[in-house]
């Protein structure tokens, strides 16, 4: 066979071949593309060696212990530390969501300087050295000019060593202006200070209480230290304990807490004090109160005469004359028989505790109402009794250095008898430039522009302050107004040292080393402050010799060792208890040296002193009379020198009710604004924080199947009257402003009231954070006269379809 392959044939063949090759290449590519479209390739999660580390959550002041699962260098799961006395292995959703804070896409990556103006900032990335130099330069300049006192540092009271460090720094630097955000417990703190004379946080013996009566406290939605309260709640309903603690929630709205309570007592908004005093009426008239306690440990129950011989009204006669059942029923809208029954139950099921008055974890209630509620505790002898209201044990630690400056603080409350200081007053003072103009503000992971009632005032403060620096995780609304933004580390990246959480009776010191290496260029603010102190030199450097926060925390552990009490978190709470009780107060630690304590604290998560001595009256009753004061002499003495106080309260200066708990009603609605706006708090966004975390956004409104967006709760009747269907977008307008929001019809709303959840309505940040309305932007600026606390109740709105 002869078969000639010509050149032409070869060219043809090659041409065909090239085409074929191209076709098959394109074909394969097309097939694999198509396959990809059809079957999106599955995400491969990188592996690595598994390890566990301990952490501390500071999403709220509770400081729950965390156990973090790591795979390689990544943190992949946050769980509760079972050894931690506060949460004992449980966690609230905010704690579990820590990972999303750590890996959040909106996090600040590097220090930035604002090269634009305050109103339209332009950000330029700078180095940490430059940032610290700028900060040091500003502070040094002010100090050298004798203006150290014009520097203010603002943070949230975090119950942590870092807060103590900040405080110490400010004092040593020469400024009295260490300012904290208002807290939901401020009214309670004021009441306890006025009636018991103590400034240490209040605590509750949750586990042993038989009857818990909450006046509007959102006990299960973020108040106090959520995980420990939820643990207690579980125990109240634990069948194995053979009893069930009754939990009663008094509140206008059928909140989640109300729905979980054994009984919900709906009442008119702002009438908590009246109800408490009405119950006191029943306790007194029926002789259900603890006569022995009242006789021995209280002051101002009966009518009395002062040293000058003037007659004063006592608590008993005030209650008997002004809070008779039918009057209280009319004031509160609660039927007489309900008040009667509640009072009898409260008197007969001891130990019983009453808590309030408060709405949320950030918005305080009214001090007079809080006094009325707290008086119930005194009536049934629950003050410092097992199962009652306690005063938190003091942490063994060296006291902070005293003030080195004679200048007054800028956040003086109207009555200086109130021990706390808060930003609401500071904003007023800064704007007015009194008593002196503020030259620099340092924000430490707070966002007052967003989270303060009347945040716009604070926005103006920042705008008129020459220098503002902000430690922040995100470029939030307040950081947007700063000259210098410093990226802060999140909980799992930094050294943590959190002390006794609010409402927890024992002294606790949780510590944790960094779980994962810091992301981006974020730094622990405490470390930066320490470096700042060294650069500044002088008193600041002397007061803070630690090179970094780790060293600072380590030194504190030495103080714990020196205190010779307590123990490291141990494997079983019961064991710790038994051991301590068995040895009847003998201290038998598992460690012999301070270094061993330090080692063990790192391994177990911290140190605590579980013992609590009841009935240390000189510790828990520090009033002028040394007793529980129904009639607050502290307040009376102060008011005697300040006539404007009675004027502000709208009463005569000799009116004894000024110093006794009494009902102060909410103002009537102004014409055209018929609906009372009350902000509410939901656990996932408790404290107004967490709005940037998808995990929390998804579950925040689950009682109404709402997610990612805020909603306006309306009762069905009002909605019907206003022709607003469920889910419609409406306008809500107060005298301060208006906003668009989705209306949701909810049967649990009291007619005449509307509710907006806190924590929504960010204007800064990416899409992940935005959505909804910030109710604080609608609230009017209202203060009560005693401590000048911002009052969330009292703003009226109108709602209309958009």
């Amino acid at each position, binding site marked *: 066979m002869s078969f000639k392959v010509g050149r032409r044939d070869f060219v043809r063949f090659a041409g065909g071949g090239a085409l074929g090759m191209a076709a098959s290449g394109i074909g*394969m590519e097309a097939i694999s593309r198509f396959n990809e479209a059809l079957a999106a390739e599955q995400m491969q999660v990188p*592996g690595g060696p598994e390890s566990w580390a301990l952490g501390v959550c500071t999403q709220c002041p509770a400081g729950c212990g965390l156990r973090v699962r790591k795979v390689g260098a990544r943190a992949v799961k946050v769980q509760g530390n079972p050894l931690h006395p506060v949460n004992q292995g449980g966690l609230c959703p905010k704690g579990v969501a820590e990972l999303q804070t750590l890996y959040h896409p909106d996090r600040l990556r590097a220090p930035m300087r604002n090269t634009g103006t305050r109103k339209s900032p332009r950000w330029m990335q700078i180095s940490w050295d430059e940032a610290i130099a700028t900060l040091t330069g500003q502070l040094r300049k002010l100090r050298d000019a004798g203006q150290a006192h014009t520097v203010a540092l603002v943070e949230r009271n975090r119950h942590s060593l870092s807060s103590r460090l900040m405080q110490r720094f400010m004092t040593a630097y020469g400024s009295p202006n260490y300012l904290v955000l208002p807290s939901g417990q401020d009214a309670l703190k004021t009441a306890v200070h006025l009636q018991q004379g103590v400034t240490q946080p209040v605590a509750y013996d949750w586990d042993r209480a038989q009857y818990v009566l909450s006046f509007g406290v959102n006990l299960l939605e973020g108040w106090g230290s959520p995980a420990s309260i939820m643990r207690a709640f579980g125990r109240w309903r634990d069948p194995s304990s053979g009893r069930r603690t009754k939990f009663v929630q008094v509140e206008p709205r059928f909140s989640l807490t109300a729905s979980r309570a054994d009984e919900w007592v709906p009442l008119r908004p702002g009438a908590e004090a009246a109800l408490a005093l009405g119950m006191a009426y029943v306790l007194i008239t029926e002789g259900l109160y603890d006569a022995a306690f009242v006789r021995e440990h209280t002051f101002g129950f009966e009518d009395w005469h002062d040293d000058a011989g003037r007659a004063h009204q006592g608590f008993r006669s005030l209650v008997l004359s002004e809070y008779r059942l039918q009057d209280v029923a009319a004031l509160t809208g609660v039927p007489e028989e309900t008040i009667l029954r509640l009072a009898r139950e409260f008197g007969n099921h001891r130990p019983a505790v009453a808590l309030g008055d408060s709405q949320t974890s950030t918005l305080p209630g009214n001090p007079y109402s809080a006094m009325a509620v707290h008086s119930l505790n005194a009536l049934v002898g629950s003050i410092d009794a097992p199962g009652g209201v306690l005063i938190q044990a003091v942490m063994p630690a060296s006291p902070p250095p005293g003030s080195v400056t004679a200048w007054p603080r800028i956040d003086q409350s109207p009555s200086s008898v109130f021990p706390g200081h808060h930003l609401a007053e500071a904003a007023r003072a800064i704007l007015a430039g009194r008593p002196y103009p503020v030259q620099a503000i340092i924000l430490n992971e707070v966002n007052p522009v967003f989270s303060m009632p009347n945040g716009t005032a604070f926005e103006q403060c920042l705008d008129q302050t020459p220098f503002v620096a902000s430690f922040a995780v995100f470029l939030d609304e307040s950081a947007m107004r700063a000259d210098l933004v410093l990226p802060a580390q999140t909980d799992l990246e930094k050294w943590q040292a959190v002390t006794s959480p609010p409402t927890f009776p024992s002294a606790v010191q949780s510590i944790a080393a960094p779980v994962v290496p810091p992301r981006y260029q974020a730094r622990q603010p405490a470390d930066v402050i320490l470096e700042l102190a060294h650069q500044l030199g002088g008193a600041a450097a002397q007061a803070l010799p630690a090179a970094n926060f780790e060293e600072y925390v380590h030194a504190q552990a030495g103080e714990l060792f020196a205190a010779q009490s307590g123990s490291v978190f141990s494997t079983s709470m019961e064991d710790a208890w038994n051991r301590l009780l068995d040895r009847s107060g003998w201290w038998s630690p598992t460690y012999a040296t301070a270094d061993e304590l330090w080692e063990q604290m790192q391994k177990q998560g911290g140190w605590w002193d579980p013992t609590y001595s009841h009935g240390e009256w000189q510790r828990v009753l520090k009033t002028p009379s040394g007793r529980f004061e129904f009639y607050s002499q502290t307040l009376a003495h102060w008011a005697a020198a300040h006539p404007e106080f009675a004027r502000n309260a709208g009463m005569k200066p000799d009116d004894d009710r000024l110093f006794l708990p009494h009902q102060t009603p909410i103002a009537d609605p102004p014409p055209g604004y018929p609906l009372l706006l009350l902000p509410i708090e939901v656990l996932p966004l408790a404290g107004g924080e967490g709005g940037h975390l998808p995990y929390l956004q998804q579950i925040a409104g689950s009682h109404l199947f709402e997610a990612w967006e805020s909603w306006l709760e309306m009762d069905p009747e009002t909605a019907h009257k206003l022709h607003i269907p469920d889910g419609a977008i409406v306008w809500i307008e107060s005298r301060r402003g208006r906003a668009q929001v989705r209306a949701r019809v909810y049967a649990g709303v009291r007619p005449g009231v509307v509710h907006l959840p806190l924590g929504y309505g960010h204007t800064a940040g990416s899409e992940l954070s935005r959505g909804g309305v910030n109710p604080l932007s609608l609230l009017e600026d209202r203060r009560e006269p005693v401590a000048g606390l911002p009052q969330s109740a009292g703003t009226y709105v109108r709602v209309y379809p958009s």
Partner: protein
Amino acid sequence: MADWSPMPPPLAARWTIGGGFVLCFLVGAVVFSAAGRNHAASQPIAFNHAKHLANGMSCTDCHTGVETQARATLPALETCMNCHATALTASAEERKVRDLAAAGKELAWVRLTQVPAHVFFSHRRHVVLAKIACAICHGPMEKATAPPARPFREFTMDACTQCHENNRGGTECNDCHR
């Protein structure tokens, strides 16, 4: 045979082009599809398993997770530096290790043996509890003088289930599917 009559020229031309097309298309399909899937791994250093094992080391010295964790783990540079911080040989590959360490870099190993993303595989379960020798899946590494270019065997579901059935390993879906 000599009278093998050729096709009329135009037809023959078409056949030639067509033949070339088909032939190259098939070859191309094979080549391209294979190229997409199975490119031989190139490792950052030409690690010699045989030599290390001959020197008395065991698998778990470097693959530290084998006996305690689900993942065997590929050794970090730090592990290498335990022995190779100072030069043991004049090998250029060995110097790479120290150069990387000096530059503060990590060893970018290419993972060769990998189960699909939806399969959970635990080394400890297989090696410690079921006492399966490494070589059953990974082959005789004591003979490997160069990094293996491709996995020792295909890790298909059939392969897994077959072994599980033969050795009563259990074939509950969710024990491996995740």
